[in-house]
C-alpha cells in the first residue's frame, strides 16, 4: 500500500509543526499557492511503520550477500556512519568561515593527500558527487588541457567496448565523439585496433583496469605509450580500485587522470542508489585544471582554494563542495584501514574472487576467460544453459533471490552473452561464498530437471517478476497525477 493510501484528510502531526503567529499577508495573492499540496497526511506512527516495513522489502549488504559485479558491495562500517553524523559535522554550514571549519577541513585535506598516495597522482579534488561526475571532471580537464595548448582538433575520445556506459556518455557531455575499441577474447584491449584508432584527433582514452571483464590489462604500459605518443591523455575509471589498492597505482601505470568511486573502494554506503563520490585525481600537468573547491594547507591552517588561486580550473560542479558526508565516511574508513589494511583489501578481494571462480569452474560452470586470473571480480557465462535448457542469466539471477543471495550483475559487460559479473569483495567470509556456490549448483540442477520452475522465479519475494514493458508503455510515475 502506498503512503498516500494511508492518508486521512485533515490529519495533522503537530509535533512536527512549528508555531506560527497569524497569517501571511505581505505576499501578493498572485504569488501564493491556492490549494494545499496533495501530500500524505499521517501520524508519526503511521509514517514510521510504513517506512520501517517498506525497508524490509529490500536486500542490502546488512542483510544479504550481494556480489554485484563492478559495484563493490562491501561492509559499510557502522562507525563511519555515526562519526560522520556527529552534530558538529551535520550542523556545519557549507559557507561557514574557514576559521570555524578547521576540524572539517583537516579531514578533507588529509583525504586528498591519502587519495594522491594510493593512486599515485599529484593532486585531488573531492568535489565530484559520483563516478560519472568524476568522469565529467576528468574529461573536461583533458579538454581544458588541449584547449590550453590551443590544440583544438582533438575531438575524439577512445573507449574500449567493455567500458561502463558512463564513459561514452561522459565523453558526449564534454563535446567529444566516441570511438569504441574492441576487446580481445583474452580480455585485453585489442592493441592493434587501438594503434589504428589513435591519431591527431585523439583527445584521450578512458580505461578501466582491471577491466569490467575482471582481468588486469597486461599491456597497460604499451597502451599508455600509444596514446601519449599520439598526444592523447589517459583516463582511469577508478571504479575498480578495490582490485589493486596498495598493489599498483594508476599514476605509475601512466594514467593522467583518475576518478575514484569512494562509495565502492572506500566503503561509503550505496544508499539504494547514492549518494556517491567520484573524487578526481590528476598528474602534475593536469593540476591547474582541477575543479574547485579544494583544501590547501598553509602555515596558519587550512584554507579553500578559489578561482583566484586556480585561474585555469574547469570551475565548480556543485553548489558547495560535493558530498561532504560521503567524503567524511571515506576518510574515516581509510583511517581505520591504514596502510596495511588497504593492501589487504586488494589481496582478499582477489582471493575471494579467484576462489569463487575456481569453485564454480570446478563444478562445471563456464567462466568467461578461464585462462586468466580473476581480479576482484570475474564472469560466469550461461550461454550453454540458455541454449540447451532455455534458462538464461536472468533466470539464474531471479532464482538466486529466492535462495537468499542478491544476483550478480547481469548482462554487463555487453560483450559476454548471458553473463553474470560476480564480485564478492574482501569483507565476505568463505561461508557466504560457499553458500552462493551451493545455490548456483542447486539452480543448475533445477534447470536441468524443471526449467519452467526456474523461469518462474522468484517465488519468495514481495512480488514476482514485474512487467517492465507495461511500466514503460503505460507510464505511471506519480500517484498524484494518476488517481
Amino acid at each position, binding site marked *: 500500500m502506498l503512503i498516500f493510501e494511508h492518508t486521512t484528510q485533515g490529519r495533522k502531526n503537530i509535533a512536527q509543526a*512549528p508555531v506560527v503567529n497569524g497569517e501571511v499577508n505581505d505576499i501578493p495573492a498572485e504569488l501564493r499557492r491556492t490549494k494545499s499540496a496533495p501530500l500524505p497526511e499521517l501520524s508519526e506512527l503511521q509514517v514510521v511503520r510504513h517506512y520501517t516495513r517498506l*525497508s524490509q522489502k529490500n536486500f542490502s549488504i546488512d542483510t544479504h550477500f550481494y556480489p554485484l559485479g563492478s559495484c563493490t558491495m562491501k561492509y559499510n562500517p557502522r562507525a563511519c556512519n555515526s562519526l560522520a553524523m556527529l552534530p558538529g559535522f551535520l*550542523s556545519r554550514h557549507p559557507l561557514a568561515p574557514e576559521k570555524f571549519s578547521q576540524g572539517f577541513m583537516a579531514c578533507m585535506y588529509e583525504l586528498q593527500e591519502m587519495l594522491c598516495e594510493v593512486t599515485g597522482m599529484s593532486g585531488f579534488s573531492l568535489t565530484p558527487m559520483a563516478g560519472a561526475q568524476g568522469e565529467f571532471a576528468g574529461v573536461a580537464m583533458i579538454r581544458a588541457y588541449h584547449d590550453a595548448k590551443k590544440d583544438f582538433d582533438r575531438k575524439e575520445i577512445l573507449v574500449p567496448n567493455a567500458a561502463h556506459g558512463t564513459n561514452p556518455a561522459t565523453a558526449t557531455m564534454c563535446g567529444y565523439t566516441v570511438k569504441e575499441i574492441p576487446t580481445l577474447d583474452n580480455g585485453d584491449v585489442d592493441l592493434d585496433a587501438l594503434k589504428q584508432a589513435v591519431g591527431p584527433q585523439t583527445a584521450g582514452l578512458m580505461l578501466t583496469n582491471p577491466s569490467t571483464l575482471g582481468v588486469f590489462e597486461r599491456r597497460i604500459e604499451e597502451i599508455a605509450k600509444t596514446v601519449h605518443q599520439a598526444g592523447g591523455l589517459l583516463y582511469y575509471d577508478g571504479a575498480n580500485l578495490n582490485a589493486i589498492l596498495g598493489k599498483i597505482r594508476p599514476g605509475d601505470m601512466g594514467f593522467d587522470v583518475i576518478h575514484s568511486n569512494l562509495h565502492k573502494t572506500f566503503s561509503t554506503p550505496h544508499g539504494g542508489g547514492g549518494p556517491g563520490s567520484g573524487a578526481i585525481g590528476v598528474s602534475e600537468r593536469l593540476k591547474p585544471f582541477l575543479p574547485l573547491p579544494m583544501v590547501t594547507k598553509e602555515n596558519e591552517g587550512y584554507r579553500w582554494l578559489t578561482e583566484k588561486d586556480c585561474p585555469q580550473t574547469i570551475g565548480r560542479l556543485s*553548489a558547495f563542495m560535493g558530498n561532504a558526508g560521503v567524503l567524511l565516511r571515506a576518510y574515516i574508513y581509510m583511517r*581505520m584501514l591504514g596502510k596495511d*589494511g588497504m593492501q589487504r583489501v586488494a589481496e582478499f578481494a582477489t582471493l575471494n574472487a579467484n576462489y569463487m571462480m575456481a569453485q564454480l569452474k570446478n563444478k562445471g560452470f563456464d567462466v568467461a576467460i578461464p585462462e586468466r586470473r580473476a581480479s576482484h571480480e570475474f564472469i560466469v557465462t550461461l550461454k550453454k544453459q540458455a541454449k540447451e535448457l532455455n534458462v538464461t542469466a536472468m533466470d539464474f539471477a531471479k532464482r538466486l533471490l529466492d535462495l537468499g543471495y542478491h544476483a550478480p550483475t547481469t548482462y554487463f559487460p555487453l560483450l559476454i552473452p548471458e553473463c553474470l559479473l560476480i564480485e564478492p569483495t574482501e569483507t565476505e567470509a568463505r561461508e557466504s561464498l560457499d553458500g552462493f556456490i551451493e545455490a548456483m549448483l542447486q539452480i543448475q540442477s533445477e534447470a536441468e530437471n524443471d526449467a519452467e520452475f526456474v523461469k518462474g522465479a522468484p517465488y519468495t519475494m514481495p512480488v514476482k517478476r514485474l512487467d517492465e514493458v507495461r511500466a514503460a508503455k*503505460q507510464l505511471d510515475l506519480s500517484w498524484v497525477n494518476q488517481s
Partner: protein
Amino acid sequence: MPFIPHTEDEICDMLSVIGADSIEQLFDEIPQHLRIKSLQGVPQGLNEMEVSRLMQSRAAEDGQPVCFMGAGSYDHHIPAAVWQITTRGEYYTAYTPYQAEASQGTLQLIYEFQSMMTALTAMDVSNASLYDGASALSEAVLMAVRGNRKSKSRRILVPTNVNPVYRSATKSIVHHQNIELVDVEFDTATGQTTLDALKAYEGEDFAAVVISQPTFFGTLEQVDALTDWAHANGAMLIAVVNPTSLSLLKPPGEWGEQGADIACGDGQPLGAPMSSGGPYYGFMCCKKAHVRQMPGRIVGRTVDQDEKEGFVLTLQAREQHIRRSKATSNICTNQGLVVTASTIYMSLLGPQGLEKVAIACHQNTNQLIEKLSAIKGVDVLFKGSVFHEVVLKLNKPVADVLNALAEKNILGGYDLSNDYPQLDNALLVCATEMRTDEEIDRYAQVLSEIL
C-alpha cells in the same frame, strides 16, 4: 585486518582450491616493476575507539554557531525519525534497485518521492534525483536544449539573481556542448527580473529562460508574467525553486498560462542536514511531454505476473547503461539515501506541517528584518516582500562585520561582495523556523554593538 574475516586456515584452503601458493601469486599478471610494496604516505590504521576519538575532536573543534546563513543551504529542523529510519541497513546499504523484486522497498519509496515532488511542484512527473541544485539546473538546461521543439537555439536566458554558484556550475557543465548562458540583469530597486529586461531579447531565439523563485536575494519574481513571456517567445521555462517555499508560493506547474516546463532545485531543505554542503540532492520535475528527455532514474508502477502491484526502474533507454554515448545524461549513481530521508521528512510533516515551516521561516525572517533594519547603519537593499532571505546593506565592510559576529558565535550571513561587487557592503541573511526570538534579538544586539 579490519573487516576481513579470513583465518589462516581458510586462506590456505582457498588457495589450494585456486591452485596458488600464495595470495601474492594472484597478482602475477601485473608487471612486476610496476608493483608497489606499501603505501608510505598513509598512516597506520586506527581501531574504532581511536578513530572515534579523532573524529569527535575534529567535530567539536568547529563549534556550532547560531546560523543566520542561507545562500543555498538551510538550517531546518529534521524530525528524529527521518535519519533513524533512513540509516536502517536495508536502505543505507542497498545498491541501486536493479533487481526489482529484491528492492521493492527502495523502488516504492522512490515512486512515493516522485509523487510528492509532483504534488509540491504541481508538475506532471519527477525523476528520482540528480546530484544537487546546481547540477539539476545544468541538466535542466541540457534537457531544454534537447527538448525544445520550437527552438534550435543553444542559448539560455539566465537572470543574475539566480544563485551565482548554480550559474557558474551550470556554465562549467554545459559550455562543452556549445551552450551559452546569457545574463539578464536584475532590477536594482527590487532585485527582480523585469519584463523590461527581457524585452531587450524579444525576437531572438532562446531554448529556455531560467527563473528562480525566490531569487538568490530572497525576493519574489513575477512568475506569471515571466513564464508567459518565455512561452510567447518560443522558449521553455525552467523554474529553480526552493521546495520549502512551495507550500506558501505558487507552484511552478501553475506559473502563467501553461506552467513551467521544467522545475528543479535543491532538496536539502526537505530533511537533509547542512552537513558542510552535502549530500543533498537535486530534484527535477517536468511536463509529461518531456519525460523522455529527462535525465536520471525514474521509477514506474506496474504489475507482476499475478497482476500484483509493483515498482521498477523504467524508461531506462534514456540512460547511459543502455544508450551509452547517446544517453540523456551520464548520471548513474544519484542521491538515493537523501531522497529516502526527504520522503520520510515530507510524510512526517504533511501538507500542514510543511506550510507551517514555510510560514515560520517567513515570519522569523520578517522579524529579523524588523530588528536589524532598526539598527543605524543597516538598510534593506531591495523593495518588496521576501520569502526567508533578505539582502541588507551595511555601513561597514561585510567581511569585518561577519568576523566580529563569528567571535560571538553568530554565523551572520553571506557576504555578497564577491559575487555582486556592484552591491556595496551587501549581506544576505536568513532566519528559518529554527531561530528563536532570543536568538534574533541577540543578533540585533550584537550587530548594533559592532556597527
